[in-house]
């Protein structure tokens, strides 16, 4: 029998869309306790977001009890397998103050940027993922990875500023190429050779930066700001090139399979969205495992979700406004059907992190994922009591398995808590009534 290396076996196993493979723990990569890298550095803690559209039906979504002993109501019963990894937050509010209630917008902008927009063209400033990325992105290739399961590049809830939406990766094949194409450096490779093409890139880049500065001298003040942002991007690119010229830290669980050729066709049929979500999630989990990024976003749907169901003539959003409330059930059954599909994907997302080995634990131990929506009851565009979730233990800093009742306090408390967990020097977050300086202390370990 020919020699079969561990890596060869793994590569043989990993084919098609499943790229995340649980690996035996290799002590060589970690410290004696298995909870830090061999050089003593702590395993990185990552921040992520997950978004679903059109909220919930409170009656069958919100558990009856608080704390650790809560039962999963029927609309979220698919979370049973991951309940121990998540927290559910209900009765936290977003506030509009003098702003109008902008359908499918006010709610998510509140959660992600801590402010109520004044009109449909008033986009958020910096969203929470970007804020945290500035603190923790560190030496990774991608400061933020933003993905969507809708197949639409526009479905992103991440903004660098009001004029700059983060581009959403929407195709599993293109996402694979971006992550694991020719510029990917296997952190576990025996030999490290700096790519000479990267050196050439870096040398040319300095001239481009000079060019950007020169152009700044010839434009108005608003355009100067945009060129400032461009210049920052070039500096970030330069940092990436430096990172590519540096030997990466080994990551035992980083094993990259082949790209799947099974690209889902365009469309928002729930099966296509679900499949796309699974494929993008698997790639995202491996990218995080391989330390390609420490901040990530996934949108299961746009805010006014257009997910559709074969044979039913209304997509989710349309159904939320046109389907009658079932007198006996007390809610819109088809709308609930769509929400249940969203929750199944949320369960898949959490489980993908929970299954992925890292050190002597799992990746879920070293992430904090913040899941938000755009409405509570979409039928009437209510933004009161929008549900939120977190998943993960953030390196042991966050308790999980809890149902928290906000008692009508600002939902921005959760964002503030996340920022503090990641060491941001902030005393408050949010504007006007959304402004808060009070963390959610019950979840701090």
């Amino acid at each position, binding site marked *: 029998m020919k020699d079969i290396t561990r890596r060869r076996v793994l590569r043989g196993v990993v084919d098609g869309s499943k790229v995340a493979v649980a690996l035996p723990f290799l002590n060589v990569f970690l410290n004696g306790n298995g909870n830090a890298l061999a050089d003593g550095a702590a395993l990185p803690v990552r921040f992520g977001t997950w978004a679903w559209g059109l909220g919930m039906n409170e009656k069958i979504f919100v558990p009856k009890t608080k704390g650790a002993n809560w039962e999963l109501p029927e609309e979220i019963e698919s979370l049973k397998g991951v309940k121990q990894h998540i927290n559910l937050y209900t009765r936290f509010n977003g506030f509009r103050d003098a702003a*109008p209630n*902008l*359908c499918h917008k006010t709610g998510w902008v509140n959660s992600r940027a801590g402010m109520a927009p004044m009109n449909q*063209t008033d*986009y958020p400033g910096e969203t929470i993922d970007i804020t945290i990325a500035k603190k923790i992105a560190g030496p990774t290739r*991608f*400061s*933020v990875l933003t993905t969507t399961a*809708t197949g*639409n590049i*526009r479905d992103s809830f991440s903004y*660098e500023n009001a004029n*700059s*939406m*983060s*581009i959403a990766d929407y195709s599993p094949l*293109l996402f694979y190429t*971006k992550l694991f194409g020719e510029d990917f450096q296997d952190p576990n490779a025996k030999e490290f050779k700096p790519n*000479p093409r990267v050196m*050439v*890139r870096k*040398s*040319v*880049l300095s*001239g*481009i930066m000079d*060019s*950007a500065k020169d*152009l700044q001298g*010839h*434009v*108005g003040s608003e*355009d100067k700001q*945009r*060129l400032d*942002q*461009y210049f*920052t*991007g*070039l500096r*970030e*690119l330069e940092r*990436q090139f430096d990172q590519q010229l540096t030997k990466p830290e080994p990551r035992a669980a980083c094993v990259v399979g082949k790209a799947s050729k099974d690209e889902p066709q*365009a469309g*928002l*049929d729930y099966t296509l969205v679900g499949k796309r979500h699974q494929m993008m999630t698997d790639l995202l989990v491996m990218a995080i495992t391989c330390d390609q990024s420490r901040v990530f976003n996934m949108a299961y749907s746009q805010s006014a979700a257009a997910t*559709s169901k*074969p*044979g*039913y*003539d*209304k*997509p989710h959003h349309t159904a939320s*406004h*046109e*389907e*009658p409330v079932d007198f006996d059930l007390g809610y*819109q059954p088809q709308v609930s059907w769509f929400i249940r599909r969203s929750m199944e994907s949320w369960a898949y997302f959490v489980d993908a992190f929970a299954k992925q080995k890292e050190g002597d634990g799992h990746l879920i131990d070293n992430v904090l994922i913040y899941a938000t929506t755009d409405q509570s009851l979409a*039928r*009437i565009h209510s933004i009161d009591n929008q549900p939120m979730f977190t998943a993960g233990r953030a390196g042991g800093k966050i308790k999980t398995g809890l149902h928290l009742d906000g008692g009508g306090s600002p939902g921005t408390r959760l964002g503030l808590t996340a920022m503090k967990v990641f060491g941001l020097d902030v005393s408050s977050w949010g504007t006007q009534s959304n402004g808060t300086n009070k963390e959610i202390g019950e979840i701090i370990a």
Partner: protein
Amino acid sequence: MKLVFKCSVASSLLATVAAVALASCSQAERVAKAPAASKVASVQVADYQGTVARVRRMTPEQYHNTVAYIFGSDIDVGSPFAPLRRTDGLLASGAASVGVTTGELQQLQRSASSIASQVIDKGSLDQHTPSRRDFLIPCKPVDETAPDDVCATKFVKEIGRLLYRRPLADARVAEFVAGAHKGAADLKNFYTGLAGVVEGMLLDPKVLMIADLTEQDPAHPGKLRLDAYSLASRLAFFLWDAAPDDQLIKDAEKGLLFTAKGRAQVVDRMLASPRIEQGTRAFFDDMFGFEDFGNLAKDASVYPMMTGATIKDAREQTLRTVVDHLLTRGDDYRALYTTRKTFMSPTLATVYQIPTKPGWVPYEFPADSPRIGLLTQISYLSLHAHPARSSPTYRGKALRERLLCQKVPLPPANVDFSILENPNPLLKTARQRLEAHRANPVCAGCHKITDPMGLALENFDGAGRFRASEKGADIDASGSLDGKEFHDVIGLGQAMHDHPQLTSCLVRRVYSYATGGPLTSTDDKAITALNAAFGQSGYRYKALLRMIATSDAFYEIVEPTTDSKTGEKKAAALSSDSAAVSK
């Protein structure tokens, strides 16, 4: 001879590649043979103010077209750009305010790297791929494994001039050549060294951002104008949706763009070029909101004939109709909403339920057909509908916002729509359901704006198929549009044709598109003058393009000032001491 860019004759090495880019030249050739716009109308916009100077990011299409012109249409560019926000009715106007995020720049770098690798590709006999380096690089190095500064200089000057849309300064050329030299020496490959330079150029904000650089206007002391190269760029992105070609840069170098006669000569050449089709397609694709086709899907269980190919062809059908009507035939813009002439493909013929031949063929619906004008094409009908049913409201809203530049208010946040799907079996048609919905006065406010004309299209289902009834009930397709009553879709087409805002909306959109951003009060006088002139031309689209492109307003620059009370941006001529510096 005005045409320097032909389908079959190439005048330069790079033009050869560009000619290859125009693989399907049949319609483009017809466009080029159409009557010159200068003969259609010679109306000048006399009363105007200049426009504001802008910095806009290239749109994905402009980037793609520019790369295709310089390096060939078979270069894979990928999708490196963040989507633009529709502003004042156009995605292109969103480019004037959008920033470039860090993540986007990373995507652009990967795209640039891929393009550079393709440019220096040596090809493969086994794989039947051409050696692009042989025709894109104008010289051969003495030794492929070493730097060759002479050859690199030639390449950098030639490519840099086209990418930067102006000649590169000697110092900049020297920097790039030094970069190519270092790359070639380090990598022991002349071509890989050049690839590093191409990659760098494609990341330069002076390439990716279209900056209006200005200078003092000697003909109007105290006023500013675009410098010659910025004016060339504005013309090219307006008319061709791409960077200037070699000839246009030469025209700018010679100062041809600063005389009325010279500018008219240049504009006529551009209007006569087959590339005008590319620009026209880009404009209408944007104005019609066709980017939504990228994510359009129909419920296969309800509309099994609506495949991805059908949806793609629906978009193409409308663009072909527009190009044929406005450019090839030079017909009245308003008649686009009453014409029965179009083009047909086999996949579309299935939905239209008519016989056809293979490939795209000209087609004319019979005089008694309900298919009349763009509103009855599958593109409009399917794009503005639900996945499994029609939507009079979506169709009416799109008609007002996209085609008439009107604003439909958003629905109130706390309204309950569930009556729309009232289980009462007597409500069989959309008209009946919407009438019940409008019984709610909160809903009625908006729906009376959108539904009366949307309901006139109810003879077409969510895929655009004709139907006489819905759930067994005959469809009543009567309606009204801003005071004009009609009893069917033919009447709707005529009402659109006669609507004064149909043409003024086009003028607004085209002027925005031409000047690279949303309209400001600076543009009011030009818009008024253009509306009148467009009418005098018989609403000929090419004439409108010519009027704008040859007008003084197009190249004179004013600086917007903000009214301290209203916050509104107004224009004022810059004094000479506040002039920006051209470079």
